[in-house]
């Protein structure tokens, strides 16, 4: 197991990500729009959650990625405390897994990666 990383995405992080990435789907930045779409409020971009996963992998392994695969399993809300967990599947082959979940254990993203060996 790699060391656990705790993280909370703030609404301003989501806005900063929308600006930097060019992903301006209003569901992420306009609470009224998000409510009209049937959500309790704005949600984080799945790709921001995936980027937190790659940041964690970089911290754990510090080797260049050769592949990174993520499945988005639940929506991530601003101010929701997250736990980023990871472990090797096959260390020799550079294969590992990364999971991002909330305090209740709801999995937001399940990912697999390989690093250069």
């Amino acid at each position, binding site marked *: 197991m790699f060391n656990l990383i705790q993280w909370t995405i703030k609404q301003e992080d989501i806005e900063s990500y929308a600006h*930097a990435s060019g992903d*301006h789907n209003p569901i992420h930045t306009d609470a009224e729009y998000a409510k009209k779409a049937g959500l309790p409020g704005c949600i984080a971009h799945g790709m921001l959650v995936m980027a937190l996963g790659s940041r964690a992998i970089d911290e754990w392994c510090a080797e260049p990625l050769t*592949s990174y*695969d993520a499945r988005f399993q639940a929506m991530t809300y601003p101010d929701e405390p997250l736990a980023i967990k990871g472990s090797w599947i096959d260390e020799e082959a550079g294969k590992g897994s990364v999971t991002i979940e909330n305090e209740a254990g709801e999995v937001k993203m399940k990912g697999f990666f390989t690093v250069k060996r």
Partner: protein
Amino acid sequence: MKEKTELYRYVYKIEEKEVNAFKQAVFASDSIQEIPPTFATVMDFQGGMSFYKLTELLQYDPACVLHGSQSYEYIKPVYPGDQIEAIVYITGKTMKKNMTFAKLETTYIKENETAIISRSVLIEQKGDRHV
């Protein structure tokens, strides 16, 4: 629909200031010279494949779109200053109950060689819950 069909292509010059802004937004280490692992999404959005353009091409309702999965294969390193040609393909579109699944594959070419391959599934979910 199962065959691979080209949806869109664009050329994108990677600007250092955009890479730096993205690194800051995703809390990535500043010491790495290569673009961050998920930076290809910036190339798509800034290179002309905006969220609305994509939903229009897929004939999706923009208020009902869910990103199901995303994967990347990193073949050649990509750096700020590189010029990338991206070709976006739709590799499948299927419907199940109130959901439509579109599989996309994008090849990012640097100096005539494939540098990154992206595969994603975008879902249009009609019903009481939209993402």
